[in-house]
């Protein structure tokens, strides 16, 4: 019951914030600024690809994508380190 009440309260507060956001689907939104426009207009000359999203992912923001592959690498290593434990060692704790 208390959980429900807290949830409703939190939902209401977040909804207040969300209602205030710029209207959905309009082209005049603040996030559709000169940055997005420059990506669309110059992607062709800057990177030589037609898919603007690929241009952003693999060229403009390639540093992020490098860390993204590192996240996958980390996850695989973590999975292996968790599951491939050698037998017979109980640990100290």
């Amino acid at each position, binding site marked *: 019951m208390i959980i429900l009440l807290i949830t409703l309260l939190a939902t209401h507060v977040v909804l207040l914030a969300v209602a*205030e956001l710029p209207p959905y689907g309009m082209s005049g939104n*603040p996030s559709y600024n000169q940055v997005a426009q420059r990506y669309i207009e110059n992607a062709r000359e800057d990177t030589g690809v037609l898919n603007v999203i690929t241009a952003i992912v693999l*060229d403009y923001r390639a540093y992020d994508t490098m860390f993204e592959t*590192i996240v996958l690498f980390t996850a695989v*290593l973590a999975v292996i*380190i968790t599951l*491939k434990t050698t037998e017979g060692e109980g640990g100290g*704790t």
Partner: protein
Amino acid sequence: MTATIKANLPVFVVIAPLFVAFVLPTFARRIRLVESLVIAVGVLGLLGTGYLASLILIEKGIPIIYSMGGWSAPWGIELRVDSLGAFFLLVVAGVSLPVALFGVDNLTHEVGGSAQTTRFYVLYLLLSGALAGMAVTSDLFNVFVLVEVATLSCCGLVSARNHPRAAEAAFNYLILATLGSALILGGIGFLYIITGHLNMGLASQELGRVWRDYPHVVWMAASFLLVGFGVKAALFPLHVWLPDAHSTAPSPASAILSGLGVKGYMICFTKVLYNVFGTTLMREFAMHRILVLLGMIAIIAGSILALAQDELKRRLAFSTVAQVGYVFLGLGFANASGLTGTLFHMASHAVIKSGLFLAVGAIITTTGKHRISEMAGIGKKMPITMAVFTIGSLGLAGIPLFSGFIGKWYLLSGSLEAGGSLAAVVIIAGSVLCAAYLFPMIRIAYFEPAPVEDWQDPGVPQRIALVLLAAGVVILGVLPGPFLELAKGAALELLGSM
């Protein structure tokens, strides 16, 4: 050639550990080579960050800007080595090297097998690379990705120990930390939607223009980010994952998690708070009061919970919760001395806590005991280890001439400047409580009769690591010069950039 290296140094300090991490799995069978590679990259990192920090100090804090891929600020990702970045880079390099040194020869006992040890080192290097990245990045989304790398590698380090409790602690940590990352991503999303920029400086400028139109959104973004980073940095009511995770991890992992892992998130939070929201918005939305309140609660509650623990590693883990409180307290003061104190306290806590965890790890691997009441007379059997533990405890309690004192001193003067006498009382009470939960261990170790078992100090690499960290505590306390300079510069930068 040297000119190229110099020009690209901000990138190299981030990617050097990562590159070494990628090649390590190939050499899984030759553990010596793996260890020497890790140590070598640690030394290189220390040299590189030292050079960067000296550049910043000489140039009086003019930041080094590095545009990734040649795309400048609004279009690409920008690295920015300013005083804060150089300071934290130095802390990361300085702490991660001794901790890696401690693992030499020793880690196979705790993790088991050379393949597992290699994987442990890979995760370790990935964590230090991500932390270095956090220090220099100035892009909101890049912060999220780096936080994610750090979180996954932290959880991997915890689950490296072959023990069911470690797996459970890692799972709880992973779930709560991912909840935190979702909240962080949500906060970044709100900021992006209303500003349209991901670069911190530009987002801040835009936010300063539009925040009046979206008061609730700014408020929501700030609270999402506070809760998100709070979960990851173990701010008091959200700390539930920390004691289990830090006490069940292998000792080098506990050292790096408590010393650096938690600090990385706090540096990110500091950057977001001061470089994006800025002091005006903080005052407008009373964020600084909330931070001070949360910090005070965390200090007192963390210390009291630490007092109640008998298991030494758990006690140290709860002590981390209390020390995180100091950092958030200082962030809330929002004045130069408070911020200097916060940053310096972060550095000194990183050094001290990793030293303490390593000393405790050495004790536990030698004696197999982990309760404080069972450790009678260890000081006579393991003099170096206990000496390091004593120096660390004195430092953490804030005795003059050790590093903890300077940070707390600045925090005190910051609290008086901000007009919060209650906060000053809490800071002093926290110190007293800290002494209360660490000094009994010293008393038991030195002044109780020693048992007959043949216990000895650990091997040479472990001794070097412990002595290096203890020396760090003393040097930071006696000659804080350049570190204090960098911290002061960083505080002024954070306050100046609206």
